[in-house]
């Protein structure tokens, strides 16, 4: 069956360290993979998109990798800050029309001062 797994439900790290979140998928062949941030009671906010032919994408302190052989994406936040505490969601496309997007269950990241 098709699955998207974010294999840490929660991650707790010290301020200043690099947070690394994982998204694994099975029985999908996405052309694109996206990462979103969600704060409690709010809608998801887009962070980064990476295409299947891209290995890595960066935006400020954020870095995403996409390995279509391993069927995995890694999301890194360097120099983490308490304000980075949130739930992070990966999402990928599952239809040829490119308008059906499925989300993982998220990883709740807590950055302690």
């Amino acid at each position, binding site marked *: 069956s098709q699955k998207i797994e974010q294999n840490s439900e929660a991650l707790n790290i010290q301020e200043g360290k690099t947070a690394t979140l994982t998204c694994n998928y099975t029985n999908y062949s996405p052309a694109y993979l996206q990462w979103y941030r969600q704060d409690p009671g709010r809608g998801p906010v887009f962070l980064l998109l990476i295409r299947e032919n891209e290995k890595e994408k960066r935006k400020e302190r954020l870095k995403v990798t996409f390995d279509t052989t391993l069927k995995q994406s890694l999301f890194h936040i360097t120099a983490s800050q308490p304000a980075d505490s949130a739930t992070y*969601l990966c999402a990928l496309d599952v239809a040829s029309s490119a308008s059906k997007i499925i989300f993982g269950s998220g990883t709740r990241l807590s950055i302690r001062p």
Partner: protein
Amino acid sequence: EPEVTQTPSHQVTQMGQEVILRCVPISNHLYFYWYRQILGQKVEFLVSFYNNEISEKSEIFDDQFSVERPDGSNFTLKIRSTKLEDSAMYFCASSILAGSYNEQFFGPGTRLTVL
């Protein structure tokens, strides 16, 4: 900065009643979406809408659900006969082009409580 808006922020209804959730997508966007998130669970795709018709829908989006773009600005989700299990946060989103390779902008959500 343009944003997606949703009304109401909270809707309480009795089981079996019809509800309409409203969204105003960003004005130059062409794709519109509804998602739901049951408390403590993941964001679930319901439906995407493009060029005045449904583009994709999930297994959740059964005959009880419908979507409409009644005018040039609003995008609505109707649930005909609500069930207890429809209680969730409903998010509307829009994107300039198809959402897989474009940023989706999400609204703040409508919390639906079915009693």
